[in-house]
């Protein structure tokens, strides 16, 4: 299905204050792929993600979601196709209770209430958070918030999932649970992260950004084992790679 395709064609973006965050980024993600976007702080990862859901519009080049270029007119289509799990769940859980929050998206899409109720239940059960439905978000732990935020996005049944640093701020257990959860999804996934271990578990393909450009694009296993490349892009390999005598840089241990 071309529905799940997402592409950037020579995209450039400059913030109003003059910061050039993206310079000539080209990238194509096809149906069912799971792609990691990694890069040092300030490399432009979040900026890139905001182009895929139409929060930012490219100042150069174009972004295509499904068959349509992202413009002001196609935003409703883009937002139905692409679901974004933001970096800070507190930004995303703005309704007073978990149930209301998950229902927010489907109601905006015009779903009838009875159907919406079922959808909310299904999505909360899918992430193992149905028992939290009546809680206000400020009484949830970090891991619970993250799962509810994911459910809220799933409730809109997007074809493509964007996740900004889904494992930050979670304890090892919560982190593992989120990774397992995401592995179970068949959506096309684009994951921005600093967690290279998560990349190896979740994403067969990795795109490395450096100073607003694509520095490398290829199989995660190969890219993350390339110490010289990672070094050049201001990154450090995942613990597994460091321990591995063939691909790690032993002196860094």
């Amino acid at each position, binding site marked *: 299905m071309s529905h799940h395709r997402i592409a950037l064609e020579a995209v450039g973006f400059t913030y109003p204050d003059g910061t050039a965050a993206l310079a000539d980024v080209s990238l194509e993600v096809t149906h069912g792929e799971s792609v990691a976007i990694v890069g040092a702080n300030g490399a432009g990862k979040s900026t890139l993600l*905001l182009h895929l*859901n139409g*929060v930012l519009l490219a100042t150069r080049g174009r972004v295509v979601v499904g068959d349509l270029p992202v413009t002001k007119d196609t935003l*409703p289509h883009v*937002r*139905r196709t*692409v*679901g*974004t799990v*933001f970096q*800070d769940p*507190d*930004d*995303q*859980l*703005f*309704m*007073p*209770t978990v*149930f*209301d929050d998950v*229902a*927010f*998206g489907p*109601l*905006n*899409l015009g779903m009838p*209430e009875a159907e*919406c*109720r079922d959808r909310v239940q299904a999505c909360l059960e899918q992430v193992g958070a149905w028992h939290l439905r009546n809680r*206000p*978000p*400020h*009484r949830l732990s970090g891991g619970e918030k993250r799962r509810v935020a994911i459910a*809220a*996005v799933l409730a*809109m049944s997007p074809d493509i999932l964007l996740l900004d640093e889904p494992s930050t701020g979670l304890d090892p257990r919560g982190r593992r649970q989120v990774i397992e959860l995401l592995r179970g999804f068949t959506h096309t996934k684009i994951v921005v992260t600093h967690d290279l271990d998560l990349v190896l578990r979740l994403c067969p393909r990795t795109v490395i950004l450096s100073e607003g450009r694509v520095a490398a694009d290829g199989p995660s296993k190969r890219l993350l084992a390339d110490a010289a490349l990672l070094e050049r892009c201001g990154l450090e390999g995942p613990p597994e790679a460091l321990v591995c005598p063939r691909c790690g840089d032993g002196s860094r241990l």
Partner: protein
Amino acid sequence: MNGPHAAFDLGTLDRLSQGTSPIHQLDPRAKLLVTLAFVVAVVSLDKYAVADLLPFFLFPVLILARSGVPFRFVARKVAVVAPFAILVGVFNPLFDQAIVLRIGEFGVTGGWLSFASILLRFALTIGALLLLVATTSVPALGRAAERLGAPSVFVMQILGLYRYLFLLVGESQRTLRAYRLRAADGGRPAWRIFAQILGQLLLRAVARARRVHEAMLCRGFDGELRLMGTLRFAGRDWTFLALWLAAFIALRFLRPAEMLGALVTGGAQ
């Protein structure tokens, strides 16, 4: 999160509102309407009313008893706002020295009477509002207001404020702590620095508001708030509403307190 506890005990209020007493289970619209009627009835009595106000204590006392909200909690909160009431009424005894009431050989001036009246009204209305919030969650109140026809923007403000107040309070406390840890004397920050901290908090709040708005847009928000209709007005809600409205109308217009007042003030001799 222990932040909000320091600021007016929002945490406690929030926890109390999750209770399961018969009062908690009433439809929020019934409680909202009854409380508003109560406030209007109390506030609209004439400015020398003291004895007429006393029977109105029936309402908070019964709600207190039925809801299981600790009396100490409400009393303490009312005490916190009492200085405002005193500030509002403190000049009355100076300006209004006409004797309007005689108890035995004592003459009570209009000023003192209206001062007492203001204090009573404050206690009654603040107490009733506190009990409303302690027996009804803010989300439920927002929903009730929406169903009763309050503008969507207004409801959204309330819900958003409730949601982010906890974050904001937590954030301010972290910022202040960060300051204290690095301040030379570890004490209260100077005004200039305090203003800078406030500015920082404001900037962060604005940045957060922007991100929240982006997240809302990404989930199809178009300016209209859509809430699920989970409210049901049952028989007991009608009873609650009808009985209390009738009681307030009776207390307000029939003033059975003339007799009660005579008893109370007579007893003070």
